């Protein structure tokens, strides 16, 4: 078990990501932040506050549950737990930041992009992830990255957030 980010580093990393997102955000479009359930949802909540500090006030935020869009639904069976999507705004013409905790094969993000398409046509979708561990299986790349960490398929990157897990840290084992 190796600690990649402790609580302080995690918070600093998110603050830096928020500044980068704020800098990239266009002035003539509404900014929307959408987190992928469940850790991405929590990270998105934190980014909302940090973005405000960085001078950008997102007009909308939401939560995306990608379960129904997964490409492995037929093999994971009853392990697929549907928790629901909460996007109560029209994403059309927004500059949308999609937030997830770990970027790995890219399949979750593929599912998220398909799901988002069903909600409208965003002006642009940008991807923000706390950890990019490489090993992509699809041509998907992040726009804002907290930490790039090389990994192997048999390793595991675990993001813990105080709201869900009682502690802030990122570990690899």
């Amino acid at each position, binding site marked *: 078990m190796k600690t990649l980010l402790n609580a302080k580093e995690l918070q600093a990393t998110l603050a830096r990501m928020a500044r980068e997102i704020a800098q990239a955000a266009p002035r003539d479009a509404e900014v929307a932040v959408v987190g992928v359930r469940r850790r991405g949802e929590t990270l998105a909540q934190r980014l909302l506050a940090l973005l405000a500090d960085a001078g950008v006030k997102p007009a909308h935020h939401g939560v995306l549950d990608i379960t129904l869009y997964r490409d492995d639904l*037929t093999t994971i069976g009853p392990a697929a737990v549907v928790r*629901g999507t909460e996007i109560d705004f029209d994403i059309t013409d927004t500059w949308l930041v999609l937030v997830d905790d770990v970027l790995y094969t890219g399949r979750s993000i593929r599912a998220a992009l398909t799901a988002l398409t069903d909600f409208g046509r965003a002006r642009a979708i940008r991807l923000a992830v706390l950890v990019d561990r490489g090993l992509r299986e699809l041509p998907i790349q992040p726009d804002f990255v907290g930490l790039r960490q090389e990994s192997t398929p048999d390793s595991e990157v675990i993001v813990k957030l105080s709201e869900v897990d009682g502690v802030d840290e990122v570990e690899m084992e």
Partner: protein
Amino acid sequence: MSDAAPEKPVWTRKHLLALNDLSPEEILYVLDTAESFKEVSTRSVKKVPALRGRVVCTMFFEDSTRTRMSFTLAAQRLSADVVDFSAKVSSASKGESLRDTARNIEAMGIDIMIVRHSSAGAANDLTQAVDCCVINAGDGQHAHPTQGLLDLFTIRERKGRIEGLNVAIAGDIAHSRVARSDLRGLVKLGANVTLVGPPTLVPRSFEQLGARVTSNFDEILPEMDVINMLRIQQERITSSVFPSIREYIRLFGMNAERFQRCKPDVLIMHPGPVNRGKELAADIADGPNSSILRQVTNGLAVRMAVLFLCQQAAAAEKST
């Protein structure tokens, strides 16, 4: 997404036959899943790809417009292909022919069968004949589990809970699969259920299922949180067990006078279609205490959840 799957899945059934089979946890799991599906119907694209490539067959051997439409829409919102097989069969020719019919339909590559039949146990019987998922959409007077689930869902949505609520089901209990499914589900989730109607239509034997039985509607009105008015089945009125319709309405109809005696926030339910002015006064059916249309809307989300969960269970069975 680094979301760990729960160690032991709550739902592992590929068939839904009757609420009697389910644990309270399973029932609540369906309701929670349905909660998530409600949102899909509010999108501009009212569809998710969860059942893409799966084929659903609605098999209705008994008339139904809304239940079949609700199941069809639910399947379509999950991106399944839907085919319809509807035929009236004489009760004498059911048995083997139903099984044969089902086997033939399954041979065309059907993943889920939704079955309504006039004979109790028909859906259960089919599970012996086919490998695909079987969903009971009403079998005789036995069960109508998705109606039970959508009623539970609606009560929970409007009242915030089910446990401890006083719920009355009024009408022709003896012949009603809706009453049976509601009763089973409500008792499992801890509601206090009272069955109301003429003694010929509400046999005392229902007390064994955990309900209170009475023929005095007026007496119980003030304590009820929820009153579910069953439809008068016109075809039974001529039979000897049914009092005259005027007598029935006088004793068991929900009218303005009775409504006055209820709690101000009483929830009035009805499985539809309503005989306006008979078992239920029109202005109550359309009033703020009524959840009739809400039940129809919720039925869609509940059926989506049932189709999804049963299909996931079947997929898991295939992969092991």
